[in-house]
């Protein structure tokens, strides 16, 4: 019955919105923990991994169940196709948060080189991208995608500039190598988050319009 399908779809959407919030939180909190060298916050982020994976699995099962029992068509089918891919990307984004928290723990309170101005800035950009695409998923309004590519490009540039900066620091003083390699990796993670947000945007675009686009 269509009513039941509607309810199921609404529920899945809510579940994925929750997952999106969790992913974003994990990412942002991990960068905050990194910046403030807050071990406790890092531990907290680490503990959220279980929940993230569980959500991934639950939503996938839920979506497959709806697929089997309702054989949805058109937009309903596209929504589920989108959802099934989104959970993968959101898991990865949350996972990067987890990885950043892990690194924070490993640093064990060592002082940062410079003020890390760029990494939190990068994180903020990535976060807004994820926020925007999740909002677009919720409202089905894809106009915010217009500048997604630009922001992704910015993330790319930032990553390279952090890379070059760190190389300079590493050449200056070999004692910086440990910290800088962490910074380079984290920058890479954040850039990837931006990529994943773009991928989510592609799926949401398909869900809404039925057309395949490339957003990178």
């Amino acid at each position: 019955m269509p009513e039941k399908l509607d309810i199921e779809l609404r529920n899945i959407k809510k579940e994925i919105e929750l997952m999106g919030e969790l992913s974003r939180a994990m990412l942002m909190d991990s960068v905050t923990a990194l910046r403030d060298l807050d071990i406790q916050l890092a531990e907290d982020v680490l503990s959220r991994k279980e929940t993230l994976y569980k959500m991934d699995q639950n939503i996938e099962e839920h979506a497959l169940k709806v697929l089997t029992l309702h054989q949805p068509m058109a937009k309903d089918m596209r929504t589920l196709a989108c959802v099934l891919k989104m959970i993968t990307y959101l898991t990865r984004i949350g996972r990067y948060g987890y990885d950043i928290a892990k690194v924070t723990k490993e640093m064990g309170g060592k002082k940062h080189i410079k003020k890390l101005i760029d990494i939190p800035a990068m994180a903020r950009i990535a976060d807004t991208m994820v926020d925007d695409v999740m909002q677009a998923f919720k409202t089905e309004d894809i106009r915010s995608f217009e500048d997604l590519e630009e922001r992704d490009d910015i993330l790319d540039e930032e990553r390279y500039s952090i890379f070059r900066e760190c190389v300079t620091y590493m050449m200056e003083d070999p004692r910086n190598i440990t910290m800088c390699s962490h910074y380079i990796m984290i920058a890479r993670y954040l850039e990837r988050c931006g990529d994943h947000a773009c991928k989510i945007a592609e799926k949401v675009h398909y869900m809404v319009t039925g057309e395949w686009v490339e957003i990178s």
Partner: protein
Amino acid sequence: MTGMIMEVKDLNLWYGKKKALNQINMRMKKNKVTALIGPSGCGKSTLIRCFNRMNDTIDSVKITGEVLYEGANIYSPSMDVMKVRTRIGMIFQKPNPFPKSVYDNIAYGPRIHGTKRKKELDRIVETSLKKAALWEEVHDRLNDSAMGLSGGQQQRLCIARALAIEPDIILMDEPTSALDPLATSKIEDLIYELKRNYTVIIVTHNMQQAARVSDHTAFMYLGDLVEFAPTREIFENPKQRLTENYITGRFG
């Protein structure tokens, strides 16, 4: 359009005062399966019956517009309706074999069109039954009454019967709605095979069947042709809101 075999131009139909088909325009491709879907009363059965002039048998019907088969309008007065029906065959919703033997059912068509020699008829019967994937099951009881076959077998018999006069187009008006899932699946496989040598136009109220079986799908509503597109498009990303609502089950 390459490979076009039938074209409907500005077709309108009235049952007495009631209008049943509105300005239908569509083109069907050769050797493809075209499905007509839509809620009850949308006119899909009425439309398909126009393609072989079966609506002529109803007194109150009035038709304007053209149905072109290989370029010629089948409704023109110079057209021999019987000949049209030998080129455009029809399978009905409820299997309707004649109360005769299996052999006589299939031989009926060729016989009335002049084939008399037994050897020829034997060959036609065997070929048609093989094409309809029924030969294996009935080859040893060709003289038994057709009424003793199961529903699915009877429907395949009707298909064989239609194939015996070698049509170009096969019209199917909800051919599996009276059959169980296994028989339905056999007929769907058959349609896929038939596509190679014939053109199939099928009316179905079962959307999943249309999705499984057809290359093109036409969605009709209240006598209008709302959307006509490749099947994948209709079911993945329909352009009309009405089509989308029907396909997702929001109405009808």
